[in-house]
């Protein structure tokens, strides 16, 4: 892996969010991937972003604590009785 090439890194990382959302054009996508294979710093940024986003997704899928769900159920029961 080579050292970061500041201008190219900056330019490519400006599109990293679109890349992660699958909204980057094929050519730009390939360019970013090619670059990241040889640039340790950009590869780390992409990996770090994937991890951060993954953590958020996990949090969104996790059920709420039982106590909160119990309160919600009790409120529904009261409302619908």
């Amino acid at each position, binding site marked *: 892996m080579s050292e970061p090439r500041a201008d190219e890194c900056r330019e490519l990382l400006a599109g*990293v*969010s*679109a*890349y*992660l*959302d*699958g909204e*980057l054009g094929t050519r730009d*996508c390939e360019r970013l*991937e090619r670059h*990241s*294979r040889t640039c340790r710093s950009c*590869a780390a*940024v*992409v990996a*770090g*972003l*994937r*991890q*951060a*986003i*993954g*953590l*958020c*997704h996990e*949090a*969104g899928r*996790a059920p*709420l*604590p039982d106590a*909160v*769900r119990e*309160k*919600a*159920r009790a*409120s*529904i029961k009261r*409302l*619908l009785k």
Partner: protein
Amino acid sequence: MTNPEDVNLSKDDGERTAYAGLVRGAAAGNSEAMEQLLMRAQEVAYRVSLLVCGQAEDAEDTMQEALLKTYRYVHRIKNPEAFRTWLYRTVRNACLMKRRRRVDEPGRFTSLEQGATNGSGEPVPIDVADETRRADQQMIDAVVGERLRQALDRLPRAYRIIVVLREIEGLSTREVAEIAGISEANVKTRLHRARQMLRQSLEGL
């Protein structure tokens, strides 16, 4: 490097259809659909309010508000497909109202009867605000984990709501724009910056 498609950054748009199905069922008198819808509405309200505003007490109020509004709304909704956006907008507005009220209200205090004493029976000050904050943090930790809570805490509020709606709740850019009342381009810009901030925070934790 893997294909960006693998990351699946937005929850299935089928969620909106699922909500619409429950709304139709509930409006037609299906009690199971009504219960499921009310449960979902409350869960959304609690999680979004807790993560955006950081207060468990407010989150419970918002949950209650979402319950009653959803119940009333179901019987007069014309477009069930629009329910999900309506729900999140309602929750966001409730959060904003709570925040405005909190700005005006005096700091929490305790009555003399509640005052604590030390071993010699002398009164000692209690920082109720600190105790409440700790309890709120514990609740957020139970929902998203301590690391993510700390990283979310460091985000400016205008970015936090975008992250909560887009990444945690899995709404589309268009839906987030509608709910937050900003353009899609603005959502993308904020999300891009917020993701970078989250990454940096998480790396430092």
